[in-house]
C-alpha cells in the first residue's frame, strides 16, 4: 500500500474545443491522513481537478493513482462505483436533494454503495450500529445537529445546518477521502469556523484524508498543508 492517497504525475487535461481550458499538473501528492488546503481563484481549474479526482473526467493517459487505483484504467461505471465507495463529496451550497428527508440525504451514498453500507454499520473504531438510520443519526449528533431534525425535510433547515447534513453524507460509511469544494463559502465568518472545527474533528477521529478547496486563504491555517493550485500548474499563463 503506497503512503499516498492521491498520486498524480504529469497529468494533462484539455477541455474540448480550440479555446478549451487546459489543466496540466506535473505532480500532486497527498499522503494518507493529510488535511490539504487547496487554494485557487475561480477559473484556476479547481472544478476540473475535483472532477478528475472523482473520476468524472478522464485525463490524457498519465500516472494517476487514487487510493492505489488507476482511475484511467477503469470503465465509467467502475469509476462511478469507485467514487461512491471511497470518496465523500461536499459542495458549496444546495448540497442536499430537496425532496428527501435529512436522514435520507445522509444515507444517499449507502443507497448506491454496498461497501459504504457495510462500513456504515460496522464503523471501525467505534461500536457497531444496529441500523443505517442509527448510524446516520449518530453522525448527525457528532456534527452537532439535533436528532429531531433527522426526519425533517431538508428545506426546513438553515444553510449552516444543511452544510452539516452534507458533511454527514460525505462522512457516512467511512470513505477514505473527503473532497470539499468551498463548503464554507455560504456561511458567515462565525459559522465558518464552527463548521470547520466540526468537520476537521470528524476527519481526525475517523482518520480520513481531506482535500479542502477554497479561494479564502484565511482558512489555510486550519490545515496541515496548504497548496496553491497556480503553483501546481505548469503554465499558469494559459488560464482561461
Amino acid at each position, binding site marked *: 500500500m503506497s503512503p499516498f492517497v492521491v498520486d498524480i504525475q504529469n497529468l494533462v487535461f484539455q477541455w474540448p474545443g480550440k479555446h478549451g481550458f487546459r489543466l496540466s499538473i506535473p505532480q500532486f501528492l497527498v499522503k494518507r491522513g493529510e488535511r490539504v488546503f487547496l487554494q485557487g481563484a475561480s477559473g484556476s481549474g479547481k*472544478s476540473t481537478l*475535483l*472532477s478528475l479526482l*472523482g473520476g*468524472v*473526467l478522464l485525463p490524457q493517459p498519465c500516472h494517476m493513482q487514487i487510493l492505489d487505483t488507476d482511475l484511467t484504467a477503469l470503465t*465509467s*461505471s467502475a469509476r*462511478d*462505483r469507485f*467514487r*461512491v*465507495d471511497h470518496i465523500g*463529496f461536499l*459542495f458549496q451550497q*444546495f*448540497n*442536499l*436533494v*430537496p425532496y428527501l428527508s435529512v436522514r435520507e440525504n445522509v444515507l*444517499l*451514498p449507502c*443507497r*448506491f*454503495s454496498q461497501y459504504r453500507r457495510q462500513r456504515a454499520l460496522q464503523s471501525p473504531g467505534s461500536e457497531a450500529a444496529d441500523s443505517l438510520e442509527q448510524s446516520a443519526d449518530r453522525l448527525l449528533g457528532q456534527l452537532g445537529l439535533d436528532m429531531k431534525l433527522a426526519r425533517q425535510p431538508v428545506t426546513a433547515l438553515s444553510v449552516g445546518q444543511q452544510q452539516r447534513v452534507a458533511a454527514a*453524507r460525505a462522512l457516512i460509511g467511512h470513505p477514505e477521502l473527503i473532497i470539499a*469544494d468551498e463548503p464554507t463559502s455560504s456561511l458567515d465568518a462565525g459559522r465558518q469556523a464552527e463548521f470547520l472545527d466540526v468537520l476537521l474533528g470528524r476527519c481526525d477521529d475517523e482518520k480520513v484524508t481531506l482535500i479542502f478547496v477554497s479561494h479564502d486563504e484565511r482558512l489555510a491555517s486550519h490545515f496541515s498543508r496548504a497548496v496553491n493550485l497556480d503553483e501546481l500548474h505548469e503554465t499558469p499563463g494559459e488560464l482561461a
Partner: protein
Amino acid sequence: MAVSIALSVMLLLGVEQLRTQARESFSQSISGTDLVAGARTSPIQLMLYAVFRLGDATHNIRWSSFRAMAEHPAVAWAVPISLGDSHRGFAVVGTSAAYFEHFRYGDRRLLTFAEGKPFVDIFDAVIGADVAEQLGYHVGDSIVLNHGAKGLGLAEHADKPFKVSGILERTGLPVDRSVHVGLESIEAIHLDWQGGAPMPGVSIPAEYVRKFVLAPKEITAALIGLKSRAGVFQMQRFINQYKGEPLLAVLPGVALDELWSIVNIVEKSLLAISALVVAVGLSGLVAVVLAGLGERRRELAILRSVGAGPHVVFMLLAIEGLMVVTAGALLGVMGLTALGLFAAPILEAHLGISFAAGMLSAEAWQLLLLVMTTGFLVSLIPGYRAYRLSLADGLTPRL
C-alpha cells in the same frame, strides 16, 4: 401536472366507457327476435323506430299484412307494435299480450313485472320503470294519453283515461320509457277521431267503446320469432316480396352492425380527439420537467457524486415521469368513477345513456396501459436531457 393528465385520462376513458356502454345497451336491446318487419324503408330506420323508439315511422302496415306474416307456417310468434301516441313525453306502444311472453333482451331475458300484471282490460296500461319513477305512478293510478309523439301541449284523449295495471322491472332499454297498451285500446281512443283530430260533434264515451269492433286496421311494425332460425332468410324473402304492400324485414343483428358501421366514424373521431387531449397533457408534462431540469442540475451533480452513473440519472428522470403519469392515470380513473356515480342518473335521464360506474372494460384498461407506456416513452426525453446535462456538468454544474 398530474391533474392535467388525470383530466385528459378521464376524458379518454369516459369516451371509451360511453362508447362501449352505448354499444352494449343498443345490442342488448333485442334478442331472441329473428326478424323485425315494417313498411319499406331503410333497415336502420326501421330498427331505430321499431326497437329504439327513435324517429318516426314513415308508413304503417296493414293489419292484413301482419296477419299474413303471423300465420306463415315458419313463424312461431309475432308481436305487433303500434306507435304514435305518447304520455307526457313517453312513447305509447300498442301491442298484444304476446309482447310480454316473447320480447327478450340482453341474455335472452324476458320482461318481468315489478308490480301488477299485463293489461287485460281495454283501458289497462303497463308502464316502464322510468315512467313510473319519474311520474310517480303506482298500480291503479289513472293516466291520460296524448295524441302524437311529441309530449305536452298536444290533444289529449282525456275522455278515455287508462288505469296502470302493471309496472315493469328496470331493463335499461327504451321499454323503461314506454307506456304499453293493447292494440284495441289504441283503436278505442281513436274511434271518434279522424285525420289526427277529434271529429267535431262526435263523442263516443268510454263505456260504449266495447260495443264497437276494435280490430286494428294498421300497425307500425312487427317482431317475429321463427320456429327454426334456419328459415330466417326464406321468411325475410317472403316478407320483402309480399304482394299486398311494400314491406321490409330485417335481421336485428345485421341491421345493428350496419348502424355501428355509421356510428363508428363518430366514435373514432371522439376517441381521436380524446387521444389528442392526452397527448397535449403528456407534452405539458415533458415541457414542465424539461423546464425544471435547469434548476435541478445541482441535484444531478449530487447524485453523480454519490455514485449515480449518467444512466441512473436518465432512469431516475424517466421513472419520475412514469410516476407522474401513473398518478395522473389513477386520479383519472378515480375521478371517472366518482363522476359515474354522480353523473350517471343525469346522463340516463337526459340522454337515455346508461353510464355504469363499475369496472373498466378490457379496452379501457388497454387504453390506460397505452397512456402509461406513452407517458414513460415521452419521459425518456427529459431523461435523456438530464443524461446529457450530467455528463457535461460532472460534479460542478455551471449555474
